[in-house]
């Protein structure tokens, strides 16, 4: 009986303490301008900025210079058709390659298409003819636009050309079969126009959540670290000597979780809608997936926050990792082509399974069972980092108390 009531009172006290810590941490966050910037302002503006930068999705009207040494009806027809494709714009037709090169040097064009002088003659005498396409490789999207449009036009004109040249004995249909015995179709799944924003922005959204949580929590940790070093007489938690590590860790993480639920609503639900990114996923699945992701991020950040000696050091230590984390996630560089060492390292960060899972659920319409590996990994990360965060705060409590917590003993 007595044991029972003692347990009850511990639970009651624990819950009260947890919520007191929770409240205190919320106040801490709002009192700190730097943290407010990273918890709210950055997640508010950054996604908009990125979506705005990539808003045009695909390269349209890439500028192409044409060198037409053949100057025949056929080559002019070819040029007219290429110009008519949505992806390519012909900026000028020149007779001499040097001239076109100069246009490329001046960045008026990003590619050159060359019709050799024997172009028309070869085709008309029944030989294959070769066109040369020179592409600027400073951006791969130009290359893609030029190559696809030129190939498309050459196949079309080739077909028509052949039909015209076949003996009249053939019917229209049999000519078509002769030219094209096999059809093929290409289908872009999930991100149907192959857009750049639809590819990159979902990954960036998840990364923004990861990095702002990391920076914000580490800044708070750095502030605590400074106080510790300066032997600040005011204890970190002002009104009561909370003894339990668990209460502190739970209370603080609940505060972050609450704030980031709001942030996630904006970043993951409103922003994709504003910029009409592909949203094939079931909102319930997204929600279930984000819960372990947020927990893993929060506990990971709380673990790291113990190592921050000043509130400015997180900037120098963490900001540049965003670029690395994006590449480690396997969204732009395929994991199959990653050296095993980097692949192993990528599992340390919640962003890797977070980005993989979110993109697949949100853009590709996968259900939780298709992202089971990532989902489990996130829960494992959340568990491991929870324990590490507890150890970290335990260590801090023990080392903080004797000299800097003199008043707590009397209270």
């Amino acid at each position: 009986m007595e044991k029972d009531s003692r347990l009850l009172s511990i639970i009651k006290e624990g819950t009260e303490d947890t919520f007191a810590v929770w409240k205190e941490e919320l106040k801490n966050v709002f009192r700190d301008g730097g943290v407010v910037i990273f918890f709210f302002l950055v997640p508010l503006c950054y996604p908009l900025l990125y979506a705005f930068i990539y808003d045009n999705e695909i390269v349209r009207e890439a500028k192409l210079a044409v060198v037409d040494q053949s100057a025949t009806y056929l080559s002019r027809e070819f040029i007219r058709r290429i110009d008519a494709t949505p992806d390519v714009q012909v900026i000028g037709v020149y007779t001499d390659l040097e001239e076109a090169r100069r246009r490329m040097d001046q960045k008026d064009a990003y590619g050159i298409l060359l019709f050799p002088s024997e172009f028309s003659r070869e085709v008309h005498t029944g030989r294959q003819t070769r066109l040369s396409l020179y592409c600027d490789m400073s951006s791969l999207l130009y290359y893609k636009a030029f190559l696809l449009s030129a190939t498309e036009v050459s196949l079309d004109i080739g077909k028509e050309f052949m039909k015209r040249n076949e003996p009249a004995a053939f019917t229209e249909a049999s000519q078509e079969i002769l030219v094209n015995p096999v059809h093929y179709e290409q289908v872009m799944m999930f991100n149907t126009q192959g857009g750049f924003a639809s590819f990159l922005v979902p990954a960036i959204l998840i990364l923004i959540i990861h990095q702002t949580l990391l920076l914000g929590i580490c800044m708070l940790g750095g502030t605590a670290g400074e106080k510790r070093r300066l032997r600040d007489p005011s204890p970190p938690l002002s009104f009561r000597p909370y003894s339990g590590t668990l209460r502190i860790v739970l209370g603080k993480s609940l505060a972050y979780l609450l704030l980031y639920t709001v942030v996630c609503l904006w970043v993951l639900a409103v922003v994709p809608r504003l910029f009409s990114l592909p949203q094939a996923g079931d909102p319930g699945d997204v929600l279930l997936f984000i819960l372990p992701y947020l927990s893993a991020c929060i506990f990971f950040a709380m673990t790291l926050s113990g190592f921050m000696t000043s509130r400015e050091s997180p900037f120098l230590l963490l900001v540049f990792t965003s670029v690395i984390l994006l590449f480690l996630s396997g969204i732009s560089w395929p994991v199959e082509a990653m050296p095993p060492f980097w692949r192993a390292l990528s599992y340390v960060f919640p962003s890797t399974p977070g980005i993989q899972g979110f993109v697949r659920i949100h853009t590709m319409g996968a259900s939780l069972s298709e992202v089971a590996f990532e989902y489990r990994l996130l829960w494992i990360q959340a568990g491991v980092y929870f324990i590490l965060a507890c150890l970290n705060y335990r260590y801090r409590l023990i080392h903080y108390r004797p000299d800097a917590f003199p008043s707590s003993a009397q209270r």
Partner: protein
Amino acid sequence: MNCYDIARREIRRFAGHPVYLFGILGAPLFCAFFFLTLMGDGLPAELPAAVVDMDDTPVSRNLVRQLDAFKETRFVMKTHSFTEARLEMQKRQIYGIYFIPEHFSADAITGKQPVLSFYINPSYLVPSTLLFQDMKTVSVLANASVGLQKEMAAGQTEAQSMAKLQPFVIDTHALGNPWFNYSIYLCNTILPGILQLMIFLLTVYSIAMEIKDGTAREWLRMGNYSLTRCLLGKLLPQTLIFTITGFALCAWMYGFLNFPLHKGWLPMLSAMFLLIIASQAGGVFMIGILPVPRLGLGLASLFGMLAFSVIGLSYPVSNMHPAIQSCANLFPLRHYFLIYVDQALYGRDWVYSWVQYVALAGFLSLPLLIGSHLKRALLYFKYIP
């Protein structure tokens, strides 16, 4: 009491400060190691794909073998239904699906024009682009080979038949990077981008710490209250170390890995040096307009991170909103990128690049604009924790 003393004081300051050293040396070199080893050969090979072969005849199997022979494609699975393959795609076991319909070979020979379908997943842009090229090539070849058989059966030579089936062939010349090496494509800009980010951060950090530690007046006094002298003394040691790091990056890329360097070392080394001092000037400007440590650092990190998207590395600037196109010029990295494309990648005439060099040098005027504001902040601002 001159620049030299301030420089010595600065070196002492960061010698006792591991975070400082990490930012100035550790982070850029770690990133160089990361990116240059991550991409290895520069082109992913053996990307997993699935084939759904509903036909299952020697003809269709031959098609699959042809595709498998490409360096980039490897068929890891053969599924019996499309749904099964789609689920594997959603599990990210594969990046593409090649679908051969039932009765494919019979239909092809009897002139019923069967349809080959290939499905790629642009949510993974690089692997899907590579698979797309291979699958398209094989489909065109499949078309040609069926046609070729028929034409040659009708008594034509192979050359004649090919000219009929495919009168135009397009030879592509990928200028500057014919190997499609992603490492060349990305590292040349990402690594200087990281350097720029770290310079922004460290410049802001080193000045902000004077405000925070309350040593700003002492620092100004050492330079006889001349901000120019103070800043030179403080930033020159950093310039030196960053220049060594920057040149080491160049040596690694152009010397050791033999990335294209058509105009020799001078244009790139000078561009690297200008990028470094332009970024330092940018950093001074940032702490000048927001002379509070946390805000200044926040600005530096946001601006520095944005550079990677705005400079047009993966997505061309000419395709962005006009407002963003002009904003891109506010980033030293953008000018560096243009110099690299012209000088290192293509070896263009110097005429096309001098504007970018001047623009980089132009960033050096930024501290002049903000000088008096910064000095007032250093003298009178009190750090509130």
